């Protein structure tokens, strides 16, 4: 080939750097996917195969038996009703907690962004700091308070706890969102004669759909994944799925059925994983908004 002036499209180059880059990313991807993969295939194997075979190997005869067992008959202590009990408990905790915490957060954010209330800044400041404080600091007095009120170890109790501790993030989320809305819009609504609630319900809330979605994602995953509050406040009757999973896995009765454990784990991870994969970028937006705190 003679030396000529370059012409035509630039030749595609796969430089060593580029290869290294992909190699790193793929290795990382394997690291992140491996536990999920192992959980999945373990849950599809019979115990025999688990004991003898390779942890990474595909199941020779995939079976959903362990999934069925995990759902309806796995034991925690003496109860053998499976993790389905926890699933429905989690749902019953989740729905009111998510709705109430978002409603309260949205109203707070709106009030703090557009209305001047004495002491509001102090309130917001304390809330902001409160978001960072370890829950252990509040737990014991809260237990006492709820006992005194006679609602300790009940659904009401655990829902209240989720609302209380969801408050900082939700308020912050909506406050920042509303702070981004031009104040002129609020002024226009004031001149049109809107009051506190009218402006909120008819002007602001319809504009808040993106934040409502983000907040829902954040709260659904957060509350579903909660362990410590469920353990402390829900009571035996209402234990959420995470607590039940932990009890099933660490139940000391007989030989550990790893396939059932893994099936139960997969079941417990299903809701947040579904939310994550369906919501995609919204989830990222949510954790960015919730995490970056202002």
């Amino acid at each position, binding site marked *: 080939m003679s030396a000529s002036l370059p012409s035509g499209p630039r030749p595609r180059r796969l430089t060593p750097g580029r290869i290294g880059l992909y190699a790193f990313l793929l290795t990382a991807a394997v690291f992140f996917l491996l536990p999920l993969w192992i959980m999945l295939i373990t849950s599809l194997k019979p115990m025999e195969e688990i004991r003898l075979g390779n942890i990474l190997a595909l199941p020779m005869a995939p079976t959903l038996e362990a999934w069925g067992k995990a759902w309806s008959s796995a034991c925690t202590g003496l109860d053998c009703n499976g993790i389905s009990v926890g699933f429905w408990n989690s749902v019953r905790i989740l729905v009111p907690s998510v709705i109430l915490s978002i409603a309260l957060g949205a109203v707070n954010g709106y009030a703090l962004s557009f209305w001047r209330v004495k002491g509001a800044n102090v309130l917001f400041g304390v809330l902001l700091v409160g978001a960072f404080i370890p829950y252990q600091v509040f737990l014991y007095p809260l237990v006492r308070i709820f006992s005194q009120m006679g609602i300790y170890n009940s659904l009401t109790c655990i829902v209240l706890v989720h609302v209380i501790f969801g408050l900082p993030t939700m308020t912050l989320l909506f406050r920042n969102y509303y702070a981004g809305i031009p104040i002129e819009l609020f002024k226009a609504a004031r001149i049109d*004669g809107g009051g506190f609630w009218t402006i909120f319900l008819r002007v602001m809330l319809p504009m808040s759909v993106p934040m409502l979605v983000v907040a829902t994602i954040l709260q659904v995953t957060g509350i579903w994944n909660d362990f410590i509050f469920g353990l402390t406040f829900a009571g035996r009757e209402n234990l959420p799925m995470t607590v039940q999973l932990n009890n099933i896995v660490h139940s000391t009765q007989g030989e550990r059925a790893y396939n059932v454990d893994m099936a139960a784990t997969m079941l417990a991870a299903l809701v947040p994983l579904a939310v994550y994969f369906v919501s995609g970028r919204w989830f990222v937006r949510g954790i960015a908004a919730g995490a970056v705190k202002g």
Partner: protein
Amino acid sequence: MSAVSIRDVSVAFEAVRVFDGLSLDIEEGEFVVLLGPSGCGKSTLLNAVAGLIDVADGQIFIGGRNVTWEEPKDRGIAMVFQSYALYPRMSVRENMSFGLRMAKTPKAEIGRRVAQAAELLQIGHLLDRRPDQLSGGQRQRVAIGRALVRDAAVFLFDEPLSNLDAMLRNELRVEIKRLHARLGKATMIYVTHDQIEAMTLADRIVVMRDQKVQQIGSPAEIYGRPANLFVAGFIGAPQMNFLNGRLEAEGGGLSFVAGTLRLPLAGYAFNGAPPVGEEVVLGVRPEHLALAEAGLWQGFGVDIVEPMGADTVLWCSDGTHTLQVRTTGTSRITRGERVGLGLDPEQVSLFAADTGERL
């Protein structure tokens, strides 16, 4: 009775006073423009009139009624904002009727008023669209329409054209002027930093700076007899020429003297006793300097020629002073030419060098 009366109003943010005892009376049907650089307090004043911020002291009267502590909706005002402030999730029709619906106006009446406003602004075909389906110009028409349906006695405009491009700005400016003429008795208060808008729209201009009123007057007064150096420099493009000099008694009359330049001031109307011998600043607008071979001031050379179409601006210098001279667009003068400049003492402005006030 004046339509809007601002009496000794003070506004404070936190502990900082923004205004102190500002007063202004606006007649019914008048178009008043609050003009000034950003941060001069003109928007704050408008918001205080609207009731969107609290006054710390003083009173505001609208239509003879003390509205100092009234809700914005009860003041008989309507407002148009720079960012349009249309409710994003409502259609144009819903946007325009929101205030009336809040006030529980009968449906038929709402329909009638919306239709009327829509016709006036030629936005009838947009009524069922959402704000995000409209162009900037259309949005601002809708925002004006929303103000119109309120049937207010006083219309407040907060930089309504600043978000639009130059073409649309001209178009809507004319539209607002036409609207004011058609509405007859409607009082309008209009905030802007754009002197062209102020000059073209206003019956009276209030020039503000640093939270203080600098001058109140008709556009002609503001332009022709600026009350101080700030107003003189802020209004007019190209800017007024300023020459530092001294006021000297000469023969029978007074003269302005700056180095070799002299200007006998016969015919200049002083505000008070002329401070003879003091430092003064002479202000002369570029169009009041004429190219004249036998002009009063000689020895100027043309440094820069800026053709602007309708006219041409020449930067002339005699080595110590540089003056902008506005001449016709057909001027053939080129760089480097020597020219003489003539000017009429009746058209110049004199300011005290220390206070900046007009003499």
